[in-house]
């Protein structure tokens, strides 16, 4: 197999948070999502028309999908290609309904890119300053109108 060969995608149920980004991005609509009840989400990968494009692995925020190097997937039953995950969705502790997991942007804000982190602040708010090679100037004069 050549370097960079993409085979069958492998789904890791322990890492998956059930955000559905893979199903949203699959060009062949090969990943289906069923919400059977309030707390249970079924994520089904129907392998038949998957083109191994790797977009699901690219978009997955938790890196729960990896493109394996398996190519020996020939079978006499098309059902052998499918993968299925039953996931509990976390619910709000007050209202009992599902809520969205924090997005990648919000996580970025929380780990190391906080408002009180003066060292990293310029990477967000002073992005123009970073490009203009004026690192410390705009840290002080932050405009408050965003």
């Amino acid at each position: 197999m050549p370097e960079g060969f993409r085979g069958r995608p492998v789904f890791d149920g322990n890492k998956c948070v059930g955000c559905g980004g893979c199903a949203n991005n699959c060009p062949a609509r090969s990943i289906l999502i069923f919400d059977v009840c309030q707390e249970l989400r079924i994520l089904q990968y129907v392998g038949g028309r998957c083109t191994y494009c790797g977009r699901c692995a690219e978009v997955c925020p938790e890196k729960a999908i990896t493109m394996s190097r398996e190519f020996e997937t020939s079978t006499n039953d098309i059902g052998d290609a499918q993968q299925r995950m039953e996931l509990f969705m976390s619910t709000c502790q007050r209202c009992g309904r599902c809520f969205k997991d924090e997005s990648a942007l919000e996580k970025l804000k929380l780990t190391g890119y906080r408002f009180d982190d003066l060292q990293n602040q310029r990477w967000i708010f002073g992005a123009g300053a970073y490009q203009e090679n004026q690192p410390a100037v705009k840290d002080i004069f932050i405009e408050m109108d965003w």
Partner: protein
Amino acid sequence: MLKELCQKMFGRSLWVYHANSGGCNGCDIEVLNALTPYYDAERFGIRLVGSPRHADVMLCQGPGMRATARALRAAYEAMPAPKLVFAIGSCACGGGMWFDSYSVLGPVEKVVPVNYYILGCPPRPEAIIYGVAVALGLMEKKAAPVEFKQTELPIPRYHPEDLRRQGDLVIYEKAEKV
């Protein structure tokens, strides 16, 4: 049983007929790549023939299309029994990326009965040779459906009915996972 039957029926050289019912030509090139001297499927006796009347195996590429469905069906019926049909590529196996458009009927099994599926877009020549080897009973198939079930809720669940007031404190007794 199917393995013994296959070995009995197709004990000698397989002659394959290669039918494209509207694919993008990628799978055709991979099939020809499997037959040409680099991978050399001809050492197993697999030979490409030009007419379905000479063939034992039909390799279908491309989805079942509205325009070519009758021709594909006629080619299938022209093959002498016993015959095998291989669906090669994700178009033939599941309808491909445009499975729901007007001119595509769906996977090729809506037109002809399919015995073996070789997945990939396009499948590697190794995958095609492996699929033929599985069909002939030379190798075991490795694909199996994967199922994952979470048996317990990953976070503790909040039960407001278990709150108990004790003086100034509110005690929450039940905090284990569900």
